[in-house]
């Protein structure tokens, strides 16, 4: 088996202690995925595993064996950016830029979760379809900390993309 990372097959590391995060950063030099706490408390290391957003710091690389991983580098490129990447620039959804790849990866998966009807803690009626409102986005993005305080720009950027997708 192998881990498929942004379309490339990579062997799982020999040392079972190696996290998916460290595999990405230290062995593959895919440093767009960030380390902010290494203990599941900040969201900077968010990547998509089989399309679901997860924390790569608490995922052992071995656990990703046989799965497909998408990082910020695989989400979009300089020539063909993901709509969220463009929107983050337009709405100034970052300052230092360190939590940004995690925010964008989380947002990409989150919009799909809403589209699939997944509820959140602030969804008033758990049986009704979820909508990408400001409050819903704020709750659903709360696992991604930002210390520069770019929260308004981040939510604005996500709302913009959600509107474009709905149009």
């Amino acid at each position, binding site marked *: 088996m192998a881990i498929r990372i942004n379309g490339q097959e990579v062997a799982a590391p020999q040392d079972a202690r190696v996290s998916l995060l460290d595999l990405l950063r230290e062995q593959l030099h895919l440093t767009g995925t960030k380390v902010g706490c290494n203990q*599941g408390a900040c969201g900077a290391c968010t990547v998509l595993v089989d399309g679901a957003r997860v924390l790569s710091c*608490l995922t052992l690389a071995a656990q990703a064996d046989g799965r497909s991983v998408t990082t910020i580098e695989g989400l979009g490129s300089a020539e063909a950016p993901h709509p969220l990447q463009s929107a983050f620039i337009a709405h100034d959804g970052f300052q230092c830029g360190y939590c940004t790849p995690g925010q964008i990866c989380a947002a990409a998966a989150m919009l799909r979760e809403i589209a699939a009807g997944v509820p959140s803690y602030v969804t008033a009626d758990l049986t009704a379809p979820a909508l990408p409102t400001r409050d819903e986005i704020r709750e659903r993005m*709360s*696992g991604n900390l930002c210390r520069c305080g770019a929260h308004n720009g981040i939510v604005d950027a996500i709302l913009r993309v959600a509107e474009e997708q709905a149009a």
Partner: protein
Amino acid sequence: MNPVTYHRAASVAQALESSAAPGHRLLGGGTNLVDLMRKGIERPTGLIDVTQLSETIALAEDGSLLVGAAARNSAVAAHPLVRSRTPMLARAILAGASAQVRNMATIGGNLMQRTRCLYFQDEAGSRCNKRDPGSGCDAYGGFNRYHAVIGGSPACIAVHPSDMCVALAAFDARVRVAGASGTRAIALVDFHRLPGDRPDLETLLEPGEVIEAVEIPAFAGPSAYRKVRDRASYAFALVSVAAGLVIEEGRVADIRIAFGGIAPKPWRAFRAEAALRGAAVTQAAIDAAMAAEFADAAPLPGNAFKIDLAGRTLSALLAELSGSDR
């Protein structure tokens, strides 16, 4: 983190076989275990990944909901049966951690989650009877705002951090466990132990046993979950309340109450339920029920507010469930 081996179990039988090896631990989503291994609090030599086991969510013949131990928290919360039949459970799961963590965490793993006590988590610098039996407890006299007001012992006042388990406790859920000699069911309210003088023993799970599934009996009335915390989101509970209520002719026909954030285990409020059953839901009745429930409470100066907070939150939740604005 110690050097460790990693294997995937393809079946419960395989998991049972591998977990019999000394130093081996079952690995679900890893959201708690991997963190504790990195801190040196857990030091397994082998990990058996059990996320390939059943993740089925389906109705059983008796009308209860059967959730495979490997089902992810997010999948359970999003499941139509859970949202429509037991909204309190969906809401409790959604109150926990973040979307990323819920995508990783499994139901079985959530049951085995360990405490967030600051002194338990500080392997290098603090005494903890749970980590190191007999060493002492630095939470007494320290920061214990998040600690237990009831159910604790002189040895330990750490609280169980799960939201989901609070809802499961209220719903009389059962944990189905496989062992070498077959399977057994443990009531969730019994699954977690109170610390007594052995706070290191946290559940009734025996070494070598594997959690297969959780069964959640149907509940006839509306149910809800409210979590009170220091941040609006992504924080452990100071107090949480799970409640279900059936009112017939103005009286409580069935009621379920469980508290989180206040005790070493998900705290099913049997005494409060008994006090309220058959009564009208009035503030006086709730006050009396709370007084009965917390008669044995042992609050500390840093956390005494939680009893009052639990009562207020319960009162608001029951008002919401009974559709009144009392």
